[in-house]
């Protein structure tokens, strides 16, 4: 199996981008990633595209629609889709394209455009529910998260105040991210706790905003990476993914077992025995504040119910022992579903390469983990990266 490195990354501003087409957003992100890698499109062997449900922008075969912007024309090209989990699944697909020995350089481009849906992306989200048993109840997507959050708080006795701290941390971290949509240097726990009720316990500031954007990565075999960027060798050392049953009303909603399995797979591959000690930085998927905590636990970075305590103690701040979502996360930078690859995989790459600028964490991390979560709340993809 060939070893694989990340040699470039790029992303667009995350915001309502009615001006640009999805294709144009893809191009912007892809070009940045290629520029950082110092490669031209001609030097790319294959292209992977990631984008979430077609229903969001009502365009079928989105992979085909975005092809030219992603630089896939006349190349081996495929779309990978696992809902929100796409954000970390496409880089895994990129990894196996190279690890298999088939290719030396792969461009991975993720895009999302949620502003096209009228009157609101929420109306489209309702279509992800089971058409026979759930949809006749006229659900809103937020319900499913509200119910999960309630169960999580109940089972592990987690306080709403500690969960609110995640929104505060991430929205403040996002102030230093040039692509951020919802950064807020002054936000407080009280702001979060008193924000508009959506589906309780979920309030407005517990949620990341729908957004448009794109992100891209250039992956290369380690041999090629040593030639083109010997100054920063950041490798993908472990990958894992796993999904639970579609029967969501039969599942344990408090602990994400599927994620623990995906993480275990990635850690074993990376030779990590004790993730609590060996992981120095993490970008877990944070579309809701409680998800960051639940995902830290699923990633085995702490015990179930302990993530809130670490957050309260400041361990997960940028200058803490285990910085978590130093990018500002989905809560602070925005949530263009698949495109959040830029603040998960992209951020860990920039941090390990010491290229995160104002967002650079203090503990000079060598090993990092990132994760995305999606489908019907039961899929996770995990990537472990290292600086060599």
């Amino acid at each position, binding site marked *: 199996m060939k070893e694989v490195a990340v040699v470039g*990354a*790029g*992303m*667009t*501003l995350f*915001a*309502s*981008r*009615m*001006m*640009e087409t999805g294709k144009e957003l893809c191009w*912007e992100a892809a070009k*940045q990633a290629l*520029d*950082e890698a110092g490669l031209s499109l001609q030097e790319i062997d294959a292209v992977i595209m990631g984008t979430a449900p077609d229903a969001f922008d*009502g365009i079928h075969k989105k992979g085909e629609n975005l092809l030219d912007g992603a630089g896939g024309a006349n190349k081996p090209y495929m779309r990978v889709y696992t809902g929100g989990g796409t954000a970390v699944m496409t880089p895994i697909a990129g990894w196996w394209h190279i690890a298999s020995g088939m290719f030396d350089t792969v461009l991975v481009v993720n895009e999302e455009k949620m*502003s096209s849906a*009228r*009157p*609101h992306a*929420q*109306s489209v989200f*309702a279509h992800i529910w089971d*058409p*026979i*048993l*759930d949809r*006749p*109840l*006229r*659900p*809103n997507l*937020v*319900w499913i998260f*509200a*119910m*999960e959050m*309630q*169960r999580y708080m*109940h089972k592990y006795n987690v306080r709403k105040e500690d969960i609110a701290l995640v929104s505060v941390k991430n929205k403040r971290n996002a102030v230093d991210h*040039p*692509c951020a*949509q919802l950064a807020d240097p002054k936000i407080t726990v009280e702001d979060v706790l008193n924000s508009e*009720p*959506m*589906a*309780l*316990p*979920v309030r407005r500031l517990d949620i990341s905003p729908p957004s448009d954007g794109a992100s891209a990565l250039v992956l290369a075999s380690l041999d090629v990476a040593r030639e083109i960027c010997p100054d920063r060798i950041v490798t993908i050392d472990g990958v894992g993914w796993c999904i639970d*049953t579609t*029967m969501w*009303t*039969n*599942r*344990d*909603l408090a602990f994400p077992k599927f994620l623990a399995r995906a993480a275990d797979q990635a850690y074993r591959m990376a030779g990590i025995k004790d993730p609590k000690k060996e992981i120095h930085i993490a970008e877990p998927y944070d579309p809701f504040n409680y998800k960051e905590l639940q995902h830290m636990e699923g990633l085995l970075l702490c015990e179930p119910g302990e993530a809130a305590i670490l957050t309260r103690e400041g361990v997960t701040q940028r200058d803490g022992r285990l910085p978590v979502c130093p990018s500002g996360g989905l809560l602070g930078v925005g949530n263009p579903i698949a495109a959040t690859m830029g603040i998960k995989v*992209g951020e860990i790459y*920039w941090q390990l390469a010491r*290229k*995160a600028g104002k967002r650079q964490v203090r503990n000079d991390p060598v090993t990092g983990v990132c994760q995305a979560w999606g489908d019907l709340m039961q899929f996770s993809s995990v990537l472990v990266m290292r600086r060599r």
Partner: protein
Amino acid sequence: MISQPRGRKLSREEAERVPHVVARPKARYAWSAGPATGRFLEELKEGRVLARRCNGCGRVLVPPRMFCERCFRPTDEWVYLPGTGTIQTYSISYIDTDANRIAKPILVGVLAFDGASEGCGIMHYFGEVAPEKLYIGMEVEPVWKPQAEREGAITDIKYFRPRRKEDRQ
């Protein structure tokens, strides 16, 4: 390093001035409920809740299915349940399906049915209860639509209400 991104966020008014095309897809679908969920729906019409047992793992499954996804073998028999259950989780929703704000909250959650395997249940509404009285672990029972109005749908149950009269509103 991230280069300074191009473009900017447009206001709603600016976005409306961007050249664009608006269209509504014209599509309708008929989704099959399948033999398991189909019979479950038919039984709801009669005011009964039906499950399916798998003799491989011994689970009593709701929603019922014709095969067990764990044992990967056919399930074995139909099992009638009393219809009562326990709240596993819930939400008090101030938004409807289109994200419109609503004054009177929707009470919704997941309940596990009595007689089914642990944690096996469905999503449904809760009613005849004050939002602040709801709790995880509350015992609930179904409130059915009048028989003539039932149509073989999950909404043949209007909602679930507390079994204890003191908890009802």
